[in-house]
């Protein structure tokens, strides 16, 4: 019932608006007698083509009008958009912020759904890039060079190469009118808001992430826990299937989990991985990607009960004994890994002992041999 009333109200107000605007339409031809260039076919084709001049130039009441006319207030109609821009990083960006993005010519603004519009999804990066890809402007405002990074990312390729309207553009993540600094809690790219922002497209991934330890920590207010962009970056997001990205992931996880990375480095998994080989266990092969849980959680892929299945993904025939392998063993830790610790000490002593003795043996022998050879030669 409420819905029906709502719709009736919208219809009625649209009807009323038509009556208000209609008289103005008749005024347009008069303006064009002087300003013919503003009212050509391009204006007619624009989103505002059906409006009269004075619908925007509201200060002009009569003819002749003053030489100086007031700046058009887009907010008279687009109040919501203007108020959002007012709170955004672009509030003071230029004298006429609307036009910077919606096309330079106020008389040729197109609907966002028009493929020729500067704010049509496929055109947004280029539009934003006008400023954010300009080295002079980015340097002046101390901004990162994000345009080229974005264009080389999986989102950029989806847009520029595949022409996908669903590809994430600048505004998909940052918003359009209400773009705020990432430090502003109201920003779509504020740390705690990033999962929801990415999740607006990657819904399934977000659900998995929220069920994992990283998502839980962020939800509970621990903003030091990683959000999407910490692992995937913000603008340079790669195809996760690519080898170059996969070999980098260990260092990415290791940037927080330093000790685990050090112990992983000692394993065959890491050695193979470092040689750019893809089919080898990296962090997420065992721990999962978005749904990572600590081993103490029975749902975790590395919980004791799940190890045979997890290791068995690569190691056919893995059994209960096999999974006692320690993927993060530390030979220096005698308490947790006593046998390995002893083996490590033994091997070091063996290596040091044998080499130490024989290097000394060799050096002494060398000088003694030289001396003897010299003596032989003198005797001959």
């Amino acid at each position, binding site marked *: 019932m409420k819905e029906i009333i709502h719709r009736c109200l919208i219809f009625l107000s649209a009807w009323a608006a038509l009556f208000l605007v209609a008289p103005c339409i008749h005024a347009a031809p008069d303006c064009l007698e002087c300003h013919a260039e503003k009212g050509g076919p391009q204006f007619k084709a624009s989103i505002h083509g059906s409006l009269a001049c004075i619908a925007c130039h509201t200060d002009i009441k009569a003819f002749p009008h003053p030489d100086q006319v007031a700046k058009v207030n887009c907010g008279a109609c687009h109040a919501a958009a203007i108020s959002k821009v007012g709170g955004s990083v672009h509030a003071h960006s230029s004298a006429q912020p609307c036009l910077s993005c919606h096309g330079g010519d106020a008389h040729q603004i197109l609907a966002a759904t028009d493929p020729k519009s500067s704010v049509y999804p496929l055109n947004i990066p280029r539009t934003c890039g006008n400023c954010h890809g300009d080295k002079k402007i980015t340097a002046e405002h101390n901004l990162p060079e994000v345009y080229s990074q974005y264009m080389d990312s999986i989102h950029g390729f989806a847009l520029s190469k595949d022409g996908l309207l669903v590809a994430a553009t600048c505004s998909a993540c940052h918003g359009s009118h209400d773009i705020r600094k990432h430090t502003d809690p109201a920003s779509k790219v504020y740390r705690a808001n990033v999962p929801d922002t990415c999740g607006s497209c990657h819904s399934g991934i977000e659900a998995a992430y929220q069920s994992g330890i990283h998502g839980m920590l962020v939800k509970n207010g621990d903003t030091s826990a990683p959000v999407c962009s910490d692992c995937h970056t913000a603008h340079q997001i790669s195809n996760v299937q690519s080898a170059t990205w996969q070999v980098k992931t260990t260092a990415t996880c290791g940037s927080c989990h330093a000790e685990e990375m050090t112990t992983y480095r*000692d394993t065959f998994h890491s*050695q193979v991985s470092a*040689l750019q080989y893809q089919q080898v266990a990296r962090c997420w092969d065992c721990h999962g990607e978005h749904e990572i849980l600590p081993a103490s959680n029975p749902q975790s892929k590395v919980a004791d009960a799940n190890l045979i299945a997890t290791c068995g993904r690569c190691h056919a025939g893995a059994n209960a004994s096999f999974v006692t392998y320690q993927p993060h*063993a530390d030979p220096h830790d005698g308490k947790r890994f006593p046998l*390995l610790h002893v*083996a490590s000490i033994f091997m070091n002593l063996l*290596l040091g002992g*044998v080499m130490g003795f024989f290097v000394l043996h060799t050096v002494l022998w060398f000088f003694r*041999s030289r001396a003897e050879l010299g003596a032989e030669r003198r005797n001959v």
Partner: protein
Amino acid sequence: MTTAAPEVRYYHRFTLAQRYLHGIVIITFLGLAFTGLPLRFSSTAWAQGLAGAIGGFAPILFFHKLNAVILSVAFVAHVANIGYRAVVKKQYGLVWGPDSMVPSLKDITNLFQNLRYFLWLGKKPQFDRYSYWDRFDYWAVFWGMAIIGISGYAMWFAPFFARFIPGSWMNIALLIHGEEALLAVSFIFLIHYFNTHLRPQNFPMDLTIFTGRETEKEWNEKHPEEYARIKGQGKLEELRAEPPERWLKNFGRVVGTLAVLAGFVMLYFTIVSFIKEL
């Protein structure tokens, strides 16, 4: 007619089978080193470059396993041969005595004599057929192959081995596989090369293992006790050999030099990376 130059007499030291065995060890050991060290030092640029040159990880592992299998077959054949000769043919000299690789008290005595000699405190010891470093070389390689081989096969067939040993021992397997390999590489490329080929008396190359023969002078200098023993038994002529062909000596020189150079390259990278790890 010119009068013949004083004849240089050659004597057999190594059999053809022993020379082939050494050849197999040269090739497979270098092959294992070149494919194993990039894994051991996988985070270094040279390891990644070498791995890339070989064709990436998959070919590296393939060649590593191929070399390992060839060396294992040679190892088993060698042990079987020694066992057969010792047990069935009752050649007990292989188990004990101057022709055996089994260390004796004389080796310890010789070692201390040699150390005294190095320090100008005594005379050079007299060696029999095998010196103490020959025997150490042999057992170092023997022990190394056993340790590296067993740990290697345990990792290769980890799920199978895990039926008999705890999976956590695979951690130990990789540790000792890698450390023992470092020992083997540094011992062979430094100590064995010097002891046998590069020390001033033998420089640049002792070709005996390639030709199987050495001159009477070499024999008497390096293994005087054996020479005197055989001479005393009047059996010198039984071991008399034709001088090695020139091509064979050149072959030995080329192969030996290449092996030494290849070993030095790996040794250099190994030492630099090992020190950086410390």
